[in-house]
């Protein structure tokens, strides 16, 4: 299991993480599964998808606040 580059939106912060699956990736980053979408080459990935070190993935946060 190698290190992969992950870009976190909206600020495009780049992190390097070791993770075997999408669910594992979010766990490593301490992010809630229900609050994020993980995208690879314009495709949303389910939690069970296996990741390799050559994968470039983006994480979209989906939570907005302050609404009333």
């Amino acid at each position, binding site marked *: 299991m190698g290190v992969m580059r992950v870009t976190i*939106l*909206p600020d495009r912060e780049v992190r390097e993480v070791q993770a075997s699956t999408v669910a594992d990736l979010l766990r490593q980053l301490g992010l*809630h*599964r*229900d*609050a*994020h*979408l993980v*995208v690879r080459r314009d*495709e*949303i*990935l*389910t*939690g*069970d*998808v296996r990741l390799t070190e050559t994968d470039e993935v983006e994480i*979209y946060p*989906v*939570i*907005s*606040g*302050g*609404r*009333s």
Partner: protein
Amino acid sequence: MRCHACARPANVEIRRSRIAFCARCYPDWFRARVQERIDHDRMFRRDQRVLVAVSGGKDSLALWHALARLGYRADGVYIRLGIGGYSRRSQEKCERFAEQHGLTLHQVDLEGREGFVVPDLRDARHGKPCAACGTVKRYHFNRVAADLGYDVVATGHNLDDEAATLFGNLVHWNIDHLGRQGPVLESTHPGLVRKVKPLYRLSERETAAYALIERIDYILEECPMAKGAKSLAYKAMLNSLEEQQPGAKYGFLVGFLKQGRAALPGVGAGQAPELRECVRCGQPTTAELCAYCRMADRGRRRHDRASAGVSSA
């Protein structure tokens, strides 16, 4: 994981239902859920005119997109709240969406029309204008809908929004607000247009997935005024629970609407407060001068002071 509808590799999982869909089947599933709520909760009919309150964010634009695709007569309304570059960028997203899809977008320019902007409404205690911003939006959505003859105002409130609001109202035991929380707010005065929330059983993640798959260009950045808002803390807490117990948010909200709300004193007993018209603006209110007009006076005073400070500096 395979698509529940066609067995191709899945893209979006719905953990609470233990199903998943591919990017081709997911939009149909999403729109079917929206249609189901509109019909089941009797939100509006096909011959009625719907005004969708849009902010440039994923929820309101996804709702507008879904309603248009389902064949409803849905126009949009956007309020220029004057929150610097964030407002300019969100306005552009709404204008571009309307243009791309050939839809009608109404706009309200708060500063030009009212002489203040949302940052003028920061409260003294927390420095946040979120509650006041909610009042501004509700007021103008209703005013535009009533003036232009729309039958209903639809907002993009999703499951996470509604569960967080419910949680906040329980934390503070805000019984009045608990009794009024629901997916349909009926009109209790000729000047008050019905309000509906067709996305209230779809999670924020599901709405974002719809927006991404349908290539809706929405504003990703968070409102700068909302940083540190209580609703974000409630959502994070509920998502921690959801991590361990998929379906917890859904059960919390839908259980309340089905069972909890009816047990509250006064709910469904026709005890809606009597409304009259504001002496200044004519909008429905319980007081002589409505909450919006009182708040607008404060906003204008602060706006004038801030402008004088800038020009004398």
